[in-house]
């Protein structure tokens, strides 16, 4: 089976260029360097049709940058994202529309000066997927798909609650009949009971419209619930990818293990927390070798010097850790 979406050697650097003063001082013999953050560092993976792939990681790990590149909003520094058009169910839409994104903050991702009907129909009308005369009927159908009352058509975003606004955002993404949705922390800003409604909506939509998801979240509970496969990122690199059962039961990378141990869980009940030590290092000056070695209790001299490669340790289970070589 060929993957629907293939990401190969994708990297993105953010460069803070030198200001005037630093440039002048450099001419006078000072040595100011440009600051470079490798937000995403040589990342490769693939997503198959109908799959939900979860991306987890802590702040600064590059998961959002990755999502934006996959969605085509942000050009990569190097590497590429390729979409297999032969597997697409909808052949007559422009390629750029096939991937849509749903954002974290439903307050800032909708234009406050537009009515819901215009928010939803702007893109399909522009791309001539629907005629302007069909606008109203189309918007009503979209709202019903995401579980909103068609009476809300003429409202502005501020007249909705957070959960409803997120539904509008989903309707807008679905309006161009995409194949692939990138959800970047799409439920992080919502209350628990509303979160459950939106998660269920995502699952329903996947089944009814044959969608494929890249689901980015810092919340491991959400990822465990929704994903088929999980990608774990740390400081711009993938440290482990595994099918969900393996991720939950036999995580391989010490970082994944620490992450899972730190998650508060209902079913565990009262317990004593024994966290891993250390801060998340600054992405401006990541540690050498394996990025995780300063916090890892198994770290050896090799981890400090050499970057571990992402290797397959079991079918479909990849991990980037030197410890796997010794075992």
């Amino acid at each position, binding site marked *: 089976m060929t993957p629907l979406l293939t990401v190969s050697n994708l990297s993105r650097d953010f460069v803070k260029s030198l200001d005037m003063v630093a440039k002048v001082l450099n001419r006078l013999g000072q040595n100011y360097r440009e600051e470079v953050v490798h937000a995403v560092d040589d990342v490769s993976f693939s997503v198959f049709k109908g799959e939900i792939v979860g991306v987890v990681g802590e702040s600064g790990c590059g998961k959002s940058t990755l999502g934006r590149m996959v969605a085509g909003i942000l050009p990569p520094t190097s590497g590429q994202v390729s979409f297999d058009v032969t597997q697409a169910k909808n052949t007559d839409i422009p390629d750029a529309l096939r991937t849509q994104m749903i954002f974290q903050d439903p307050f800032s991702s909708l234009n406050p000066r537009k009515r819901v009907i215009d928010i939803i129909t702007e893109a399909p009308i522009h791309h001539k997927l629907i005629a302007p005369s069909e606008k109203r009927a189309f918007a009503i159908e979209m709202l019903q798909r995401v579980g909103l009352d068609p009476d809300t058509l003429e409202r502005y975003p501020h007249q909705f609650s957070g959960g409803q606004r997120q539904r509008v955002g989903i309707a807008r993404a679905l309006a161009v009949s995409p194949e692939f949705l990138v959800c970047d922390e799409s439920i992080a800003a919502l209350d628990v009971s509303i979160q459950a409604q939106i998660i269920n909506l995502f699952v329903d939509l996947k089944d009814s419209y044959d969608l494929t998801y890249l689901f980015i979240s810092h919340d491991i509970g959400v990822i465990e619930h929704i994903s088929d496969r999980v990608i774990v990122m740390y400081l711009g690199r993938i440290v482990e990818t595994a099918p969900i059962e393996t991720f939950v039961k036999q995580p391989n990378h010490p970082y994944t293990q620490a992450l899972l141990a730190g998650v508060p869980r*209902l079913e*565990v009940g*009262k317990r004593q927390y024994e*966290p891993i030590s250390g*801060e998340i290092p600054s992405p401006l000056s990541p540690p050498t070798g394996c990025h995780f070695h300063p916090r890892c209790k198994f770290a050896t001299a090799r981890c400090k010097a050499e970057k571990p490669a992402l290797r397959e340790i079991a079918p479909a289970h990849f991990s980037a850790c030197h410890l796997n070589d010794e075992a």
Partner: protein
Amino acid sequence: MDPILQIKDLQTHFFTKAGVLKAVDGVSLEIGAGEIVGLVGESGSGKSITGFSIMGLVDAPGRIVGGQILFKGQDLAKLSPAEMQAYRGNRIAMIFQDPMMTLNPVLRIETQMVETILSHDSSVSKIDAHARARDALGLVGISSPDERLRAYPHQFSGGMRQRVSIAIAMLNRPDLIIADEPTTALDVTIQGQVIHEMQRLCQETKTALLWITHDLAVVAGIAERICVMYAGRVVEQGPNANVIAAPMHPYTTGLLGSVPGQNRRGQPLQQIEGMVPSLMNLPTGCAFQNRCNLVSDICTSTNPDAISTKDGRLVRCHNIAAGDSA
């Protein structure tokens, strides 16, 4: 043993132009020495306002209109602002969600910590205050505290900053700490570290802790007792294990059912239909009626009183009879 804090039927209302908003409407709870109590609820449930009421931090148009906040027998609701000042930061401390908002960005950590000590006890010498500040930083797991004391808040990471605000809260060895979403802004591994420090400090110093959060999983891991709030009222409170394992109020049941995790993979999450009603016009009767699947006639007419159950819970629901247990 007498509880450190005893809240009886607290009512904090906001008198706005559009009407009276009953943010906290009859909350009662108790915390003993060294005990951790979790106060859980969604946005707008009144959990933070309960915390602010204890600290005397409710701003106009809000006002405590009824009930008692007994701190070691003294009713805090009746104190003048000046008298309250002597308690705040001294006997009772608060930790907020965003440590960047709590710490003054233009003062060194040292200045802020020494100030906290001296403002409550002017007999302490500056040298002693400095030493206490340094020890407090060491206690919350900050390495090289001497150097860190000279730093400004922006030089710390988010998790470190939250540790500093915990250290400041612990400085005067308070009897009670109110923590309002202290780990919500933090990453998982850092959250684990902060919870670990708080757990340890409470056990070692016998400080009582009220942990306010929307995250049930966090309080399930640390609290002795859990109070669940909805629309300004505590709908269920009781021992941690009982509430989590066998919730009795339909709202608690729904809330627990909507937490995603590995156990319910492939099944849809249980969802609570609808939204939290506006506090401005709550329905007569039970505030949860329009989202409840056990609703009956009495729910729409009478607001349920708290019923105590066999296993030591208080539940506000008409479907529960006195003496029931789950």
